[in-house]
């Protein structure tokens, strides 16, 4: 009876789908896309499984690197030899693993989840080498990273730390710490698997269910993101440029798309802007970053009268943004897995109509945020 209540079958856009919540709290969704010849398997481990990175900023990031290698460090080689590939990322919302490839290898792709759920067993030498790699990764952190970190830290109570981590602190981690943290990260209560492709949903869901039921048992206690008022808030960071940040309530809200659309429109009309947003159905900041401390002066000129021309362009950019989200790459898999966990009732297909239906008032309100209402972050360098 419980199983019947928790699972349901839907038919939408020609994709037969099964969604389930398992007794141990794990969630899954399998969607068939007939004749696509492709498969995508995404595992999302909520950050709530390891709150505050277990006291060492960057623990989840380091775990992501090790988990992706598999217990025998041969996971990539095995997958690639079968035409599959694995991508791993760490975000504020959680740690993500996406396996993609031909649907004829769907069983292998799904079975690889077992490797990802294994506790991390590494030696001290391996930790040292991996931290060297993460140090090198640091150089690719975007110019806006410090501004984004500041927004996460200062717009929430308690503040949300950078996921990249503190290398010095990470160097102190011992193999036993990583083993314990990896088991916590893979606690069933915070796990979600999303599978999409040319697969039999019933059979695949059964297989995923069996794997998820083998995950370490444990509840995932959701940490509410209490946000602070952005108006009038000012911070500074040691970096070049300047930024404005505003809290978005989630992708399923029109104002999120209005702010993204208007920011993207500004970026295309005025030099030196970048728009940053970690797509999510939870609260998080949208950042408009300017490469210099004077970049924002250029957007003061837009007035309500300009909405006749500005609003359609912002709307178009919101639509293009949504189209980009739907491109079937790893980011799409991660977003869909998050959706299952964070907003299961929301239909992704609504995003297009929300973007197309943004009103001039919503876009004007969003533009005013960028002109002044958002948190101001100045760069000092």
């Amino acid at each position, binding site marked *: 009876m419980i199983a019947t209540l928790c699972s349901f079958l839907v038919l939408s856009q020609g994709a037969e789908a099964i969604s389930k919540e398992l007794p141990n709290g794990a969630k899954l969704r399998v969607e068939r896309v007939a004749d696509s*010849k*492709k498969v*995508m398997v995404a595992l999302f481990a909520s950050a709530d499984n390891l709150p505050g990175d277990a006291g060492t900023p960057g623990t989840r990031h380091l775990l992501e690197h090790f988990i992706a290698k598999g217990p025998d460090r041969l996971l*990539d*080689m095995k997958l*690639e*030899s*079968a*035409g599959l*590939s*694995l*991508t791993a990322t760490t975000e504020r919302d959680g740690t993500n693993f*996406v396996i*993609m*490839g*031909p649907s004829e290898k769907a069983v292998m792709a799904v079975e690889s989840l077992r490797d990802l759920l294994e506790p991390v067993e590494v030696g001290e030498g391996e930790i040292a*080498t*991996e931290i*060297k*790699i*993460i*140090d*090198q*990764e*640091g*150089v*690719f952190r*975007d*110019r806006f990273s410090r501004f984004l970190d500041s927004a996460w830290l200062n717009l929430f109570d308690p503040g949300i730390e950078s996921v990249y981590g503190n290398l010095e602190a990470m160097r102190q981690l011992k193999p036993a710490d990583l083993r314990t943290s990896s088991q916590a990260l893979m606690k069933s209560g915070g796990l979600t698997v999303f599978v999409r492709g040319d697969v039999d949903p019933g059979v695949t869901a059964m297989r995923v269910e069996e794997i998820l039921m083998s995950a370490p048992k444990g509840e995932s206690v959701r940490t509410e993101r209490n946000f602070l008022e952005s108006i009038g808030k000012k911070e500074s960071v040691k970096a070049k440029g300047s930024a404005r940040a505003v809290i978005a309530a989630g992708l399923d809200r029109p104002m999120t798309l209005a702010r993204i659309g208007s920011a993207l429109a500004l970026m*295309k*009309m*005025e*030099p*030196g802007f970048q728009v940053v947003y970690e797509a999510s159905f939870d609260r998080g900041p949208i950042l408009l970053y300017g*490469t210099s401390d004077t*970049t924002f002066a250029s957007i003061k000129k837009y007035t309500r009268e300009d909405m006749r021309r500005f609003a359609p362009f912002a709307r178009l950019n919101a639509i293009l943004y949504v189209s980009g989200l739907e*491109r*079937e*790459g*790893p980011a799409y898999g991660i977003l869909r897995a998050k959706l299952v966990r964070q907003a299961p009732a929301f239909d992704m297909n609504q995003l297009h109509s929300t973007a197309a239906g943004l009103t001039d008032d919503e876009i004007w309100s969003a533009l005013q945020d960028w002109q002044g209402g958002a948190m101001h972050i100045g760069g000092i360098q």
Partner: protein
Amino acid sequence: MISALLGLSMVQYQVKLSVLELPKPEAETVSIHAYLWRDKNFVKEEQSWRLICAITGVNSLTYNASEVGYFGGTAGIRPRVVSSPDFLRVEVVSSPEKWKESLALAASLVAQPNWRSNQWEEAEKVLAGTVLDSWSESLWPMPEFTEKLLEDEAPNAHSRIIDRSGLRLIVEGPVEIGEAREEMEKVSRLWSVPEYRSLSRFAEESKLPMKQNLAVTTFEMSGKAIRVGEAGSAAQFLATVALGVGKGSTLWETLREREGLAYRTEAVFWPTRNGFVPRLFMLRRAEEGEIQYAETMVKSLEQGVEAYDMISLARAKVMAEQILLYPNSFAAVYVDAENTLFGLPDDDLRWRGLLNGMGLPSVPLARWVEMLNEVDEKAFQAAAKELVDSASFRVTQGVPGL
């Protein structure tokens, strides 16, 4: 006499056309790709080329911006413009009923930019303020826009390039052979290339910079352009995959996983007018004395190649098929400066259009995968060795501590 002189000074040239028609009766839409290929990448035209790429698609002498927008509204998709150092491409997807209008629009956007109303000054400002990330900068460095372009500079470059290279169109869908060409000949009958100043025969060709204003240093080994379909090309393609594509590649396994030297190692196939150039990259934090890592990179690859066997070849074949035909995290075959083959609906057309522009037979992707599967171990090993031994090495130094 005066009018004769005036007539002489107003000489204009006919736009040269090349049309490749790929009938696909079962298709529900017609895909149209219009290309402008550069004959050479001259230093003098680098800024202009970036600007031409930025303004293409805004409007043309035949279609104003509203008409282009209206087309997007009625066809559902606005023309998409992509570019690279060697070419730009306008892509239009059309309903079969409107394909001739779509063809005319795509061709016009490439061949007839309207410099009076395309707001090129604004586009130039945006370009001047653009800061690329280290990966984009490694692939196609942004020229410095320290001096503003003269009013006629970009139009002149456009006229010169289109006069030299012509307009190249690729049409795929439920169309008959000869229809597209006939339509284009009709449409472009009155189009002309405005008079332009020639470049000096001593004009310098562009070179990649030795320094970049980033915290990253780029180590790059590049091989000879792979001429898809020609002898040895399939083995060269697989050798590049084995060396740098994916986490089982030599670059990843040695420089990243074994040495911990870099986070980002990668191989890409870069589209140029001569073919797909294999480019092997290691990007790392800029530091003093970093030049030693160039030797480490070469030695790692040399050692890796020595150990290539049937398993390496098998992995390369599987990986190659994935990056050519399906969405893949390690997508490596660039179809312009920003996008790779990714199993998308028009990828085969993009690939075939590029081959056509490279002067190669337009081998479909599926056929190319079959050709890759015919490569034997000996040819694969020889191609890998040849690539590493003959590659040119380039280090673009970043700024330590930036």
